[in-house]
């Protein structure tokens, strides 16, 4: 039985600019996230995806419409209770590291929520094991790589046993290796624990791994669908400033230069398979 975790119901939000002109950053957006899903929200800079993240965690409240988290309308009154059931990973690995060592940082949210000391120790170690950082519990943040810091941030979120993990551009400041480490950890968590994941990103390679993609453009919801459905509309994605995955670009260029290839190729493997079988289907 699918359970709804988060939903946006005709949500609009505008920032007040200095001249008093209001621009809609979010314009009438509705979608729902079910338990156990991995949703990627993609969009170019200025598409409103960061504002959307702020609405989900109650840093901003919508002008119109409702944000429902765990089937409750998000409001000042239930904000802290709802936040304690979700985990967050932000963009900058350094600026979200509060503790002076890895274990202190993982324990930070537990301390805030008044978890007793004996529970904390086991939960800190469990969550560090889940992100493969057990050997680093006494390390200081400046001795860690970006990818390791982000994994610590994930561990910090996991320690609270969240029902929803929200990642706001969590991999955009990492090198390719760090990015892979983080994505692998999230994938593993999802298959093992059935965690619901919302990842906000402009990286379509990362979005490929999601169950469903929500495409944003200029504050409006452009389309939602599975990666296959979304990437079938590659031109539209490029038109709104998104960078297509490498394999897709290669396959498009090959076709443009006259090679006969069938269908879209979203990953490198699919492309390779498409290439070596391209002559059989003649």
């Amino acid at each position: 039985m699918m359970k709804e975790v988060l939903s946006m119901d005709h949500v609009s939000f505008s920032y007040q600019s200095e001249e008093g002109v209001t621009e809609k950053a979010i314009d009438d957006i509705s979608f729902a996230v079910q338990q156990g899903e991995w949703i990627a929200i993609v969009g170019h800079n200025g598409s409103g995806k960061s504002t959307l993240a702020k609405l989900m965690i109650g840093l901003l409240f919508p002008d119109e419409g409702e944000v429902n988290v765990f089937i409750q309308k998000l409001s000042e009154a239930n904000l802290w209770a709802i936040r304690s059931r979700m985990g967050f990973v932000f963009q900058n690995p350094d600026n979200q590291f509060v503790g002076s060592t890895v274990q202190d940082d993982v324990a930070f949210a537990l301390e805030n929520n008044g978890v007793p000391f004996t529970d904390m120790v086991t939960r800190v170690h469990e969550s560090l094991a889940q992100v493969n950082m057990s050997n680093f519990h006494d390390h200081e943040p400046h001795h860690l790589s970006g990818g390791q810091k982000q994994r610590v941030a994930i561990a910090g979120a996991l320690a609270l046993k969240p029902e929803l993990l929200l990642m706001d551009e969590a991999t955009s400041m990492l090198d390719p290796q760090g990015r892979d480490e983080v994505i692998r950890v999230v994938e593993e968590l999802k298959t093992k624990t059935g965690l619901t994941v919302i990842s906000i990103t402009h990286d379509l390679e990362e979005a490929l791994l999601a169950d469903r993609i929500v495409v944003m453009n200029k504050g409006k919801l452009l389309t939602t669908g599975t990666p296959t459905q979304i990437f079938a509309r590659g031109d539209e994605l490029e038109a709104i400033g998104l960078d297509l995955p490498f394999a897709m670009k290669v396959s498009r260029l090959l076709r443009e230069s006259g090679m006969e290839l069938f269908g879209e190729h979203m990953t490198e493997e699919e492309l390779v398979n498409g290439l070596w079988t391209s002559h059989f289907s003649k």
Partner: protein
Amino acid sequence: MLEKMIFGRYIPGTSFVHKLDPRSKLSFVFLFIIAVFLANNAVTYGILLGFTLLVIFSSRIRIYFLINGLKPIIFLIAFTFLMHIFFTKEGAIIVDWKFIKIYEEGLRQGIFISLRFLVLVLMTSILTLTTSPISITDGMEDLLNPFKRFKLPVHELALMMSISLRFIPTLMDETDKILKAQLARGSDISTGSIKQRIRAVIPLLVPLFVSAFKRAEDLAIAMEVRGYRGGEGRTRYRQLKWHWRDTVALALLGVLVAALVLLRG
């Protein structure tokens, strides 16, 4: 040069002194500083020096390393010594050579005051060398807890201190990056008159401040969404534990104070 300075540095270890609870170390040093002023003759100063050496010995920090690191302070101590020698005019004259007159009392005062200074510096250095900054913060928070009644924001102060400590390396890296970026643009901070050099620091400081504020904002958001609502109802992951050795250390200090009181002139 900065590598040699040991002021404020922490050297991890497993000695008796390292293992002490930060609370006992902090109160030990605080009380020791007061006790130092009890000494007023050769015997009591001798005892003080002996006691300090005992502490250094049990911290397993090499004396050579300590002395080397304290060189800048030693100049200060020497200066104090000379000041006392030349400006105290009491007691019998022991050296009378041309215009230089050294009095007995001056020599005595000089030696005592320098010793007092040396002992204080050594003891506080041992504290910072054997206790990690974060433990010192924890200890301070705990010791200052009674002052919460007088509206002293103890928890907030301790959190501010630990976050500052945590961000020192981050901001150092940042400074280094900005410095290199400005050097690459032809900025020069190592030559020219003092005025020019101070001017050259401005393009270094402005971006550093801008980024520090940005970081502070990000951090505040991250803390808020992770449920931080002040010290109320918060539990602590870092637990301090008072061991028998902490009681022993304070008892030893008690013996020292008793000895000083009995033997002072």
